[in-house]
């Protein structure tokens, strides 16, 4: 087999937290189940079972909103150590297929199967076998994508959820991506998508039609990268021993923000997102950072090292808010706000006194 052409598999466990809860308590099977923080504590949905998703509930949605959409849902607090145990069993199965496993979070991983194959098509059989083992041995449903790179494999695994297996063979990348909305491309968030829509671009195929120089002119370096990805090109390797340096969330605002209340609200949402990521990855952050971009694109980052590493949204928010207060020149308009957790390590288990 031509080793220039890679075979990359992406596996994503379906509604993972909710699925584990249903395995632990079979009475929950088929019910709308929401795992996450309590609505009165401004919690967010960490995972929603498929019956709950039918009501329009999505993960990262505020819990009170989710309960408006689906009032009969069963709400459960997350049990991260339990999810980690299930995750480990799944990852062990993946490691039997190849040592080249990059675990993105508790419920998601990339595999590079290239060296195991004599013909590319064999990757499909391996994917099918892995999916069956995860279902039979652990009891969890997984969606898989097989393609020639990480970008396309990840879009493929999302293509037929839950329980799907989507194969994008070498040379088929463009045809697969073009009809899809631009948001499937990694790095295109809601603000960029809106700006593209204003140019009449909603699908990947339409994005590819735009001259690269035009994209570069409008979006800078980001535009050039977008053009590459839209063509299904992604040279990023599968990285084993995935030593994550940081977890971050950032948001570009449709309109620059100038008032403290809006910024604090955004900071809280970003902090919740970072905490959720940390919890899903089974990690804690020793350092909390913020990123602040003003309307004129001046960008500042600030960080604070904590006495005890944390995966708690309140602690992350408190640190981020302190940094924002020290950094933001009120009322200078803010274009982008980000929160990050750095110096990652396993959670310490230290309980808090106050």
């Amino acid at each position, binding site marked *: 087999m031509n080793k220039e052409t890679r075979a990359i598999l992406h596996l994503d466990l379906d509604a993972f937290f909710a699925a584990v809860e249903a395995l632990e308590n079979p009475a929950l099977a088929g019910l709308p189940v929401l795992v996450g923080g309590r609505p009165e504590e401004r919690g967010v949905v960490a995972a929603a079972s498929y019956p709950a998703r039918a009501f329009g509930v999505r993960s990262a949605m505020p819990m009170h909103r989710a309960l408006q959409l689906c009032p009969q849902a069963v709400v459960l607090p997350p049990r991260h*150590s339990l999810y980690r145990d299930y995750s480990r069993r799944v990852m062990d199965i993946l490691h039997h297929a190849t040592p080249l496993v990059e675990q993105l979070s508790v419920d998601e991983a990339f595999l590079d199967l290239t060296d195991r194959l004599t013909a590319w098509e064999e990757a499909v059989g391996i994917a099918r076998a892995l999916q069956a083992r995860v279902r039979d041995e652990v009891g969890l449903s997984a969606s898989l994508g097989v393609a020639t790179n990480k970008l396309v494999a990840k879009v493929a695994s999302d293509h037929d959820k839950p329980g799907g297996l989507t194969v994008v063979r070498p040379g088929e990348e463009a045809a697969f991506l073009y009809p899809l909305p631009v948001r499937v491309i990694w790095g295109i968030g809601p603000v960029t998508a809106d700006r593209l829509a204003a140019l009449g671009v909603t699908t990947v195929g339409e994005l590819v039609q735009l001259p690269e120089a035009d994209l570069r002119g409008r979006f800078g370096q980001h535009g050039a990268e977008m053009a590459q990805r839209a063509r299904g090109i992604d040279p990023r390797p599968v990285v084993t021993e995935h030593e994550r340096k940081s977890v971050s969330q950032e948001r570009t605002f449709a309109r620059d923000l100038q008032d403290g209340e809006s910024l604090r609200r955004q900071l809280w949402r970003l902090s919740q997102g970072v905490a959720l990521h940390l919890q899903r990855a089974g990690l804690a952050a020793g350092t*909390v950072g913020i990123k602040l971009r003003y309307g004129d694109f001046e960008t500042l980052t600030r960080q*604070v*090292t*904590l*006495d*005890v590493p944390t995966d708690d949204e309140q*602690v992350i928010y*408190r*640190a981020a808010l*302190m940094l924002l207060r020290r950094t933001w020149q009120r009322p200078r308009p803010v274009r982008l706000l980000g929160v990050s957790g750095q110096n990652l*390590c*396993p959670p*310490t*288990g*230290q*309980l*808090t*006194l*106050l």
Partner: protein
Amino acid sequence: MKVSCLQENLSKGLSIVGRAVSPRSTLPVLSNVLLATEAGRLELSATNLEVGINCWIGAKVEEDGATTVPARTFIDLVNALPPEQVDMELVVQTQTLNLRAGRSEANVKGIDAQEFPLVPVPEGEGGISIEADALRTAISQVAFAAATDESRPILTGVLAKFEEDQLTLAAADGFRLSVRTIPLPQPVPDPFSIIIPARALVELGRISGEQEDPIIITITPTRNQVLFQLTDIVLVSQLIDGNFPDYRQIIPQDWMTRSVLDTAAFLKACKTALIFARDAAHITRMHVKPGSDLSPGHLVVSATSAETGDDVSELDANIEGEGVEIAFNVKYLIDLLSVIGTPQVALYTTTSSSPGVLRPVGDVDYTHVIMPMHLGR
């Protein structure tokens, strides 16, 4: 300015004020030490705007004046001079300080003293007097429990509560709490509380090592600074504005198990556990095993690291109540046991997830609370 003093005195004075210098300030003058003549003495002063220290040394003043010189250069230079008389003369035009000692001569470029921020000096009477030794001990027993991360600025401070004839110091970093009460020679007329940056108190502890007379505490009329007056030294600190959490609510009033231990043996077991615990978030397990009528009780201290190994130490203990297993950050225990100051320590526990209280046996004025870690890990 033209002034002479002994190299030894100058060097000592600089070591006292030197720690208040801010080496990386946006204001260049804050990296400098102020030298000013004052009534037959030489005043040395440094500030980082949070903490300022003034110190007076004996000198022969021929001509009054003042200047500021870069602290690092000046301190290194003075420490390199022979232990003799140092003659200093300022060339005002260029703000250059000329030094002569023995057969050495040096010139240090300074910044005009006018640019140096004013460090307040105590005014009039009315300070609160406190025994230096008691204050120093209290600082060493409390300040380490303050937060070093600034995400909750209030917790980087130490609460100082003056009430009747007592001063209570309290600090908490969110995971532990330290509270010490010391007597005041004179009762205060009205109770009041201030929050002093822990860093400032640690400095005070450091520079008060030779202090024998009482230390006088004064709050500035604007109530945003506190002054500590020692013999020939004044330390000024900004106060932290805000409400300190009500620490009394945090101290558990009840307990299930009381274990009395030999402080030195407990500290040694903790230091041994640290060898392995430092690879595992400092988690150290305590297994309290009550004895019977015939045999004493035990406390088993153990730590495990997946990479380096494990250790177990068994200590004799006088135990009242039921057996319990609880895990603590061993660094917190070492911090406390190093300063507790009595031969025996009492550990009060309830469940594996409720706070542990430690008190010196025979000293009711010191209380330390540590929140445990999850046993699951």
